């Protein structure tokens, strides 16, 4: 008995030792980030890729000598997952975090973990944003967790050199006229495949997603009921038709095989938002001038785009809110568009000469500002349900199974409904 007591005491002693050490280091941290006015404040900003912040950081720090901006760019998925884990843990999140469209539903359902920007003067911005962009980051009980940075818009990138070889028009206006709807698009694809023996689109899922985005109702209605027979059915049929027509190269996006596909001319068109241009340029730098941009069949669309959010666990939420509000001002948004090409989400800026006159050299000097702005403006806003992400993955997987030959296309729709219902059931 006495021995156990002693062992216990020893444990306590050692714990105190360890606690003593960590306590000290924590204090050190506090000193560095304690944000009384006039003292140094460091704002940590998490995002991915290049959001054009380097120049903004320098400018802001110059005007606000007591504020230091720490930029932390990471991998796309890792940043979102890291944010989620830190929100659960209750500490460790950055002062400001970018959140992408694919994750905004997940985070707006945890609005209590974020600063409600309506309390920080964010309401003034509502009229400036695209309506659907503003609503997408708003929680069910009316809290605004983010201010929009960019939107993707959606157009159809195509290889003008491969089109020419296949006897198709090369000019972007003529190409846009080839496909006003998706049936025409598939017919053009069949013609291309017949002439060249090569596939036309990269994958069935990359048709499913843009077509779904054009429908008035997506997977879920505003009462969170699964609506597979509406928009999803239309989009699914287009992708099945394309697979059956033999025009899909069946490559999964952003994977090594897909990147190889660029270089080996395995597909000639690609549904592309504004930020995709950078990816094409990085993946196939020697295809400069061989790509061009036409309108997407069926009109508008959007893919991706982000918001700036402020986790409420931060110590400097007021300073963070000030910086976010500054970043979404027109002047800064134009600056970002010029440096990295991210399209602003405030329609007034689409009339700005900097956006209107911009031409992308790599894409055969296509006026990308005009093209993407038009698709973002004509988008029909769609409600994204709580389970939108997992449901999309489940249906995409069914499409992939058809492409892999494990499932016949005429048996695929009931399977897609079954898989989607399985995901939806766990939501209740």
């Amino acid at each position, binding site marked *: 008995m006495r021995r156990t007591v002693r062992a216990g005491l020893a444990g306590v002693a*050692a714990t105190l030792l360890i606690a003593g050490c960590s306590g000290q280091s924590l204090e050190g941290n506090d000193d560095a980030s304690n944000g009384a006015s006039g003292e140094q404040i460091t704002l940590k900003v998490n995002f991915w890729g290049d959001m054009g912040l380097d120049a903004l950081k320098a400018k802001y720090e110059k005007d606000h000598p007591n504020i230091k901006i720490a930029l932390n760019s990471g991998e796309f998925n890792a940043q979102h997952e890291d944010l*989620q884990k830190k929100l659960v843990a209750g500490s460790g999140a950055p002062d400001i975090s970018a959140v992408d469209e694919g994750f905004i539903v997940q985070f707006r359902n945890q609005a209590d973990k974020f600063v409600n920007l309506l309390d920080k003067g964010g309401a003034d911005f509502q009229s400036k944003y695209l309506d659907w962009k503003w609503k997408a980051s708003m929680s069910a009980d009316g809290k605004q967790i983010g201010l929009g940075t960019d939107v993707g818009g959606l157009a159809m990138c195509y290889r003008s050199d491969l089109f020419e070889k296949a006897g198709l028009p090369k000019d972007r206006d003529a190409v846009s006229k080839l496909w006003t709807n998706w049936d025409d698009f598939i017919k053009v694809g069949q013609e291309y495949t017949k002439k060249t023996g090569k596939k036309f689109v990269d994958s069935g899922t990359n048709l499913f997603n843009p077509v779904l985005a054009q429908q008035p109702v997506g997977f879920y209605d505003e009462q969170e009921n699964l609506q597979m027979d509406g928009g999803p059915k239309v989009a699914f049929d287009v992708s099945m038709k394309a697979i059956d027509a033999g025009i899909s190269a069946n490559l999964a996006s952003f*994977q090594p*095989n897909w990147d190889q596909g660029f270089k080996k001319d395995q597909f000639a068109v690609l549904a592309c938002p504004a930020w995709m241009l950078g990816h094409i340029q990085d993946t196939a730098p020697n295809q400069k001038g061989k790509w061009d941009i036409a309108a997407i069949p069926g009109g508008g669309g959007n893919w991706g785009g982000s918001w700036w959010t402020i986790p409420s666990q931060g110590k400097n939420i007021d300073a963070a809110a000030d910086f976010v509000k500054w970043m979404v001002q027109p002047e800064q948004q134009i600056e970002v568009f010029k440096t990295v090409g991210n399209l602003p989400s405030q329609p007034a800026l689409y009339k700005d000469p900097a956006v209107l006159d911009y031409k992308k050299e790599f894409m055969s000097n296509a006026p990308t500002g005009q093209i993407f702005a038009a698709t973002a403006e004509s988008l029909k806003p769609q409600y994204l349900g709580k389970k939108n992400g997992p449901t999309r993955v489940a249906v995409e997987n069914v499409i992939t199974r058809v492409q892999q030959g494990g499932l016949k296309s005429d048996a695929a729709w009931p399977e897609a409904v079954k898989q989607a219902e399985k995901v939806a059931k766990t*939501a209740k």
Partner: protein
Amino acid sequence: MSLTDLRPAARHSAPPPPPGKTKHWLYRFDIKTIPYVFISPFFILFAIFGVFPLIFNGIVALRTWRLDDRSLDGWAGFANFERLLTDEDFWNALGNTFGIFILSTVPQLLAALIIANLLNRKLRATTFWRIGILLPYLTPVVASTLVFAIFFARDNGLANWFLSLVGFGQETPLDWRAQKWSAWIAIATMVNWKWIGYNALLYLSAMQSIPKDVYEAAAVDGASPWKQLWSITVPMIQPVVLFTVILSTIGGLQLFNEPMMFDENPQSASGGSDGQFQTIAQLIYKVGWKDLDLGYAASMSWALFLIILVVAGINFAATRRLGGGR
């Protein structure tokens, strides 16, 4: 015990002057308590990073904890575990995990044994070979898995190129990720490649402690090298074999990195389009961080923990028997 026994003996031989009370206390503290202080860091760290998460996980497993809908949070009793029994995703993942586990562990340990046996002979440049087989173990798993993912690509993959050399799949190349059997083989290959050398070195070090005269006697009696391997070497290195079997069981049943990075769409963590190679660890990750259902994910983790305990126990018993059951 021995420490406490020493003290009275020392007193008898040279009785010290009666110590002051503080000194006496310090002396007792030094003898009786200090050893526990010295070994306590391990137990404290283990308590923080081992026992606490285990218990915490067990509590979470009995709750509903949904990040996407906080209003549902609350005690769930054993509902999560009941749901587990009828969840076809879980059984599918369990089947995959065991399939890949058998395809990786059995060939891996056999190959390691044979390689160790070869390395135990007189070779030129022994150190070179011994370091060489350890190299895969030193390669970061993410790097090697990425290379393997390209190796097993459908179009332009090296594996399919080899197959086409022997006249297979020239018309339609094999899509390694599409079927269970091919995906399992691909993933088991990655695991085998990484761990064979590590296990071989463990076996080798054990083999070198076997006295040479045992083999000489066996050779005189006319035992073939193969017979020597199974009748002398394996029984004599049995503790190490036990160790490797248990370690590979734990590692194999927790397999995560390889299937995750082999997937064409790692974001979904679905282990292929139809869950062809989704392991339990991957399913736990998906349920917890993609479906945002932490309570259910925790109950899966506990189920996996119990499964590993049972399988490791069975393997332990079986391996002891293999060595002649001393």
